[in-house]
């Protein structure tokens, strides 16, 4: 349904930034080299043919056992054009860092905080990167595949006078 998006991407970025593209179950997807993350997303938003006005969702997938281990997954949508695309940006386990999309879509704020909270992936340029669902003293990143479901957390004593 959104083959046009992939075609435009491949036409615009011919220097290997688009590692691979595909289509599955009605979704078009593209795997982006992480260093081209901001450039590709800016193009997707600003190109008049594509007009991806909305960042629908941003999350991570833990490909435990694969390299790179984490895929940052972004779903973009054009309200005016009615097409959408999924982007993958692979980040390594030892330094899971990718550019923040908050400057492009302010709605990326909380999804990026959640991905940081639950997977430990950091977003360079995020204005306020802190945990979203877990409390600040939480140790670890629970949605990682190597985080045991039954793992217990240390008790937290509240800091006197603290408001956060």
């Amino acid at each position, binding site marked *: 349904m959104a083959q046009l998006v992939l075609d435009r991407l491949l036409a615009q970025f011919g220097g290997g930034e688009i590692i691979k593209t595909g289509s*599955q*179950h*009605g*979704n078009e*997807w593209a795997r982006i080299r992480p260093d081209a993350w901001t450039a590709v997303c800016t193009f997707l938003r600003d190109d008049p043919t594509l007009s991806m*006005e*909305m*960042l*629908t*969702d941003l*999350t991570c*997938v*833990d490909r435990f056992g694969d390299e790179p281990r984490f895929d940052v*997954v972004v*779903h973009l949508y054009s*309200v005016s054009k*009615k097409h959408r695309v*999924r982007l993958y940006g692979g980040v390594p386990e030892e330094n899971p860092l990718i550019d923040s999309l908050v400057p492009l*879509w*302010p*709605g990326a*704020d*909380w*999804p990026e905080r959640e991905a940081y909270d*639950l997977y430990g992936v950091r977003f360079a340029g995020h204005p306020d990167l802190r*945990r*979203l*669902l*877990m*409390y600040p003293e939480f140790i670890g990143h*629970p*949605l990682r595949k190597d985080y045991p*479901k039954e793992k217990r957390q240390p008790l937290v004593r509240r800091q006197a006078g603290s*408001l*956060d």
Partner: protein
Amino acid sequence: MGIQDAADLDAPDLPTEPMPLNMGPSHPAMHGTVRMVLDVEGEKITNADVQIGYLHRCFEKEAEYATWTQIFPYTDRLNYVSPMLNNVGYAIAVEKLLDIDKKIPERAQYIRVIVGEISRITDHMTCLGAGAMELGAFTVFLYMLKGREWLYELQEEISGARLTHSFVRIGGVVGDLPAGYIDRLTEVLGKIRVILDDVSKLLDRNRIFRDRMDGIAIITKQEAMAYGLTGPVGRSTGLEYDVRRDHPYLVYDRFDFDVPVGSVGDNFDRYAVRVEEIKQSMSILEQALKQIPAGPVMLNDPRIALPSKAETYNSIEAMIAHFKIIMDGIHVPPGEVYSFTEGGNGELGFYLVSDGTGRPWKCRVRPPCVPAVAIMNKLLPGLFMADVVPTFGMMNMIGGECDR
């Protein structure tokens, strides 16, 4: 007061000091457990930090250990005022991975639409009733919840549970409509129409209500897109996006319905859009009840559908099939899909990653109310303390959906 600028009301001879203030997490107007750390000067908010997560129950982590079918009870507890919509959204996502989303029996699709639209109405009635009560309109709350309860009784009749339905299955729905259900639903819709009329008379031109709602927390259409707002909150800005219309699923392309949009993008528009959406949902229901064909309610595929109890207890083949589906789960081919439906609060997405086993590798929920709660950080500065309550009420944060 109304649309007057908050700054006009400053009394220059009354000095105030900035003060941090916690609103929540346990606050009667917080619609669940959520905390807002507000910086206020007098009655005016200068900064807001909304903090969620108090109702986090590890939906996505638990889903990785459950079979595909076992996730249905978890979806009931996402948006718990419209559980059927969660059931439907999740089922369609898995069916896409199985490549059977176009093969679901037609009657099952109609039943999904019927129970889904009932859920949408209960969702909006809960939101409107609670929001009105928080502005003092207690009678509206009683009317709305009475209407909601009639619909809950119908959902209970069909699924056996008032809220925790788990009624939808991969491949169809659990069972058919009970005898006489269509007549009872038609009767209830007639009574709800009366309730909507009464609520309109009580609120639409109510001076207090209008002054508390008009011009408060305005969102522009561009902001709605930039922040990912969908559903009634997004549509209140004039953004005409509804998944049922723009990307039809099930049999929504066979119904004639409008997508209500607002013109100002304020709290009153969010109220008005929801009222109109209840009317559209009732129209869809009436059309569905007329059109629903006879036929099976479950895809007859032994890889997916449990054999009947009689077969299970009387033939070894059926017992083995039952055992495999229950203990090992439906084997979904490896693949990934982002599937989206119109939830009560907007686009409810499920991003599923399957590795070919009976359990998902990843089951991500795109919660429609998170963007609406997130944008509160931007809306609240400049408003009065008293504006937090109607603004938050009209965002319709459902803790189960927001925190997952």
